[in-house]
Structure formats: C-alpha cells, structure tokens
C-alpha cells in the first residue's frame, strides 16, 4: 500500500470563516497539499502530498441537524454528496457545521451560486451556534441555584475546593460563551452580506486574518484547559489532600460521639450490639470533615441512633472567616425555611471568650450548630434520636473543640 506523505496543521482560518478557509485550502492545493479525506478532526487539518493542482473548495453549511442516532451524523448527507458529485464536486471532510467539497474541474458550477439561498443555510448554522450557548447558561444557572439553595455559596465552595476552582470554573464558562458569541457574530455578518447579494471571493487574502484567528484559537483553548483541570481536580479530590485522622498521633481536635455520649464506652462494652461507624474522617487542605454514625444500645434495651458530622475550617483571614460563618448561617436559614419547627438561636452569650455560636434546633433535638471560635469556623450537625435536653450537648460540643485545631494535626503529620 502506498504511503502518502501527510502533514497536520492548525488551520489559520476560523472555523466559520468560509471565504478565507476555502482560499487557504486552494492555496495549499497549489503548493501540492490536498486536504485528506475526513481530514478535519480536533481542530486540526491533515493534508496529503500531491502534485500542485488548481483545486477549488466549497464549504456548504449543514442545513439539517443530524441527530445522535442519524447514520449521516459526522458526514455530509448522502443526498447532498450525490448532488455535488453530479456537478463534479467531491465530498472531502466536515469542519464543524460545514461540509467541504473539492473540485479540480475549473468549469464546474459553483455549488452555492445563489447568495440569498446561502444566507438561509448560514442562518441555520448561526442559530445552532447560538443555541450551543444554552448549556453554558444552564450550567451557570444550576451552579448559581445550587449555590444559593443547597449550600455551596462561593465562600463555602472556596473553603471546600480551594479559592481558585469555583472562580476558574465561572471564568472558563464566560470565556467559552464569549467565543461562541464571537463566532455567531461572524456568521451574522456573513449572512447579512449574503442576503444583500454578496458573492464570496474566490481568492480572499486569508493571511490578513491569520493573527486574529490565532488569537481566538488560543482564547478558545483556555476554557477547555481550565475545565479539564477542574474535572481532574474534582476526580482526584477524594484522594488528594486528604489524610486519615486515624493515622495521626493526636486524637480529633473536637468532640466525637464517644465524647458526647457520656459513658458510652462502658455501655458499648455492656451492650455489644452498639457500634460506631466512621463514614469519613480526614484532614483536607482547607479543613477537616468528620462523620460518625452510631447505633447505641441504651440500658433498658432500646437503641438510639446518633449522627455527628463536623466540618472544621481554618479560616485564612478575618474577612473570609466572617464570610464563611455567615454563609453557613444563610445556608441553614434557606435550608430550614420550609421546616416550620426549626428554630434559630444565637447562643453566643452563653459562652465565654471570642466566640459566636448559632444553633438551629428542632423541638426534640439539635439540628445544626455553627461556631466561630477564634480563627476557626466549625459546623456541627448532631442528631441523637430521643434526646431532648440539647443544651448539655451543645456545651459539650463547643467546649470540646481543642484550641490546637487543624494546624497541630498538620504539624504532627509533617
């Protein structure tokens, strides 16, 4: 089998710049490089070495949306390929929303020889390009709604994921949306020209726009790189930056179910059915997450379930600490708004020292406790079924947090 010499290049023309793309492809043919069959992929163009030829290219807008199960998706529709073949135009490749045909016959009729009809086809592409912005708007809207309704406020998200990630995510989407709008505008300008009868130039000077195109190509890559990094970080998050607290010499810097449930160890020994399941306990870059679920067999035979979840942040600055604290309060206010029997109480006066304590309590149990103690913000969800005297528990939790905190844990680890 003959091995043809090939070369792959980054196109110097924007993907929706019909005029310059076809001029560039024709110039490449004159230099002895013919676009390879299906030679456009991942934004790159592949050429095969040939004798220098005078070839004309035509970029025909994809007027029909190919569905995901359409056999023609990815390639031009068969009807269009046949019609073009009758006129001496060979189907070569697809570049985004345009099908590329080539003819080496200088007398063959120009495929799009009615600019007003071509404007109709370009309008279809323009609509699809504009529609592609919708998923981004949706992602931003979902992101915003999730943040505002379910607790990932910017401050909390920054604390949990690191400051840069949520910001980079939004920036990436905005850049991507800007690129799409730029492309839609390019198509709109072209469509307007075509609808006024403008005929595309056969020998456009594509070199003129090369720098501009390169700049947009770089801009287009940025959001993809950011989003890829974002996904990689998210995928690696459960493993990276986490160290099991069990591995540390020190015990947890805060009360655990064992501490909170006074004398439980003896009871567990007495009632072997009692157990504590630690579902997560780790030192993260930004804080500690600690979750425990305990089924406790009480004297008298009845069992109770206790759930403790602690999120422990080392705030990096005063303003961030306050923001984090108020974000968690806002979040709980929203979360518990519909549950009429949950009451918010400011318990700061009950404790000495520079401490702010806000509790969200249901009639029969504590729901959530948000503590700002010096530079730390601690969010505690504690539930013990059947427990009604919550104040001793709150005191135990608040006082149970060791001042050494996360930094000591880190030091001991390093």
């Amino acid at each position, binding site marked *: 089998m003959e091995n043809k010499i090939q070369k792959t290049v980054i196109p110097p023309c924007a993907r929706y710049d019909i005029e310059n793309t076809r001029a560039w492809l024709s110039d490449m043919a004159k230099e002895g490089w013919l676009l390879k069959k299906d030679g456009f992929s991942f934004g790159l163009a592949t050429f095969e070495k040939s004798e220098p030829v005078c070839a004309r290219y035509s970029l025909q*807008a994809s007027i029909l949306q190919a569905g995901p199960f359409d056999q023609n998706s990815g390639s031009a529709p068969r009807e269009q390929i046949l019609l073009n073949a009758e006129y001496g135009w060979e189907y070569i490749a697809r570049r985004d929303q345009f099908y590329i045909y080539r003819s080496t016959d200088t007398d063959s*009729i120009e495929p*799009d020889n009615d600019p007003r009809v071509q404007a109709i086809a370009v309008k279809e592409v323009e609509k699809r390009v504009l529609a592609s912005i919708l998923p981004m708007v949706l992602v931003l809207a979902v992101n915003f709604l999730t943040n505002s309704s379910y607790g990932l406020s910017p401050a909390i998200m920054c604390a949990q994921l690191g400051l840069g990630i949520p910001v980079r995510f939004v920036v990436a989407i905005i850049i991507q949306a800007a690129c799409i709008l730029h492309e839609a505008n390019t198509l709109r300008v072209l469509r307007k020209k075509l609808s006024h009868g403008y005929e595309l130039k056969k020998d456009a000077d594509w070199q003129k726009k090369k720098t501009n195109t390169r700049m947009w190509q770089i801009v287009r890559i940025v959001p993809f790189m950011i989003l890829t990094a974002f996904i990689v970080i998210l995928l690696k998050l459960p493993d990276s930056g986490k160290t099991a607290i069990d591995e540390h010499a020190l015990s947890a810097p805060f009360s655990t179910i064992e501490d909170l449930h006074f004398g439980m160890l003896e009871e567990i020994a007495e009632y072997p059915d009692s157990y504590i399941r630690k579902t997560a306990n780790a030192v993260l870059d930004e804080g500690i997450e600690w979750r425990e679920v305990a089924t406790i067999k009480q004297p008298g035979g009845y069992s109770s379930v206790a759930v403790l979840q602690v999120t422990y942040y080392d705030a990096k600055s005063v303003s961030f600490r306050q923001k984090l604290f108020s974000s968690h309060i806002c979040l709980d206010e929203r979360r518990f708004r519909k549950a009429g029997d949950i009451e918010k109480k400011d318990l700061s006066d009950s404790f000495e020292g520079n401490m702010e304590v806000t509790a969200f309590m249901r009639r029969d149990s504590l729901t959530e406790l948000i503590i700002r103690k010096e530079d730390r913000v601690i969010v505690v969800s504690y539930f013990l079924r059947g427990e009604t005297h919550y104040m001793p528990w709150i005191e135990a939790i608040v006082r149970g947090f060791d001042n050494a905190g996360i930094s000591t844990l880190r030091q001991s680890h390093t």
Partner: protein
Amino acid sequence: MAKKPLDTMTESMFYTMLALSCGPRCGIDIAQDISRLTDKRIILGPGTLYTILSKFLEVGYIRQVDLDGRKRTYEITDKGIGALNDELSRLRQCLSDAVHIHELEKEKTYGKQDSEDSDPALCPV
C-alpha cells in the same frame, strides 16, 4: 411539525417550485428543468439546490415521494402550491405596478394621445 412559511422566495426558489409544479422530480431533474426553462439564465449549483430542497421540506412546501436507488424524488404539496400561487400573484402585481408606473411616466412626457399610440412592444419593462 411544519415551520412557518418562508418570508421571501428567491428566483432560484421560485423556479424550483415551478419545476416541481409540473410533477415529481429528483434534484438533478429540477436543476435541468430550470436550466431549460430559463434558457440557461439560471443554473442552480448543487449547494443552492440542496439548501432549497431542505428548506422546502422543512416548511412543508414539498415532500419526498420516492427513493429510487440513490435518487430522491420530491413532489409539491398543497401548501407549496399555495405558496407558488401567492408568489405568482405577487409577481403579477409587481409587473402590473411597473407597467402602470411606466404608462404614467409616458403620459407625463408625451401626452395621453402619444401614450396610446405608442407600441407596447417597445416598452422597456
């Protein structure tokens, strides 16, 4: 679901409808008919023809009736006939307006008598 009718019909579109009003045709037949009808004044390129057929299918002016081997045959629908008649009426109206304006201009220039005596074949419109 058929979309809203086309706002404007270009010359290529009009002749495509005209060709299909004579009976079912495949794409190449349509192009050849138009070339013959217009004495090669209008030669549809394959890209133009494909866009027109796709758009007409989308708005319901034509439908595909047969798939003979690799060729698809199309026929005009009632909606398409209605659109063609509307376009014909519009063109007749344009022509009538043009003739009327032209006669008024001639009356102004040569007077009513001269206008009546003038040879309509010499009318540039």
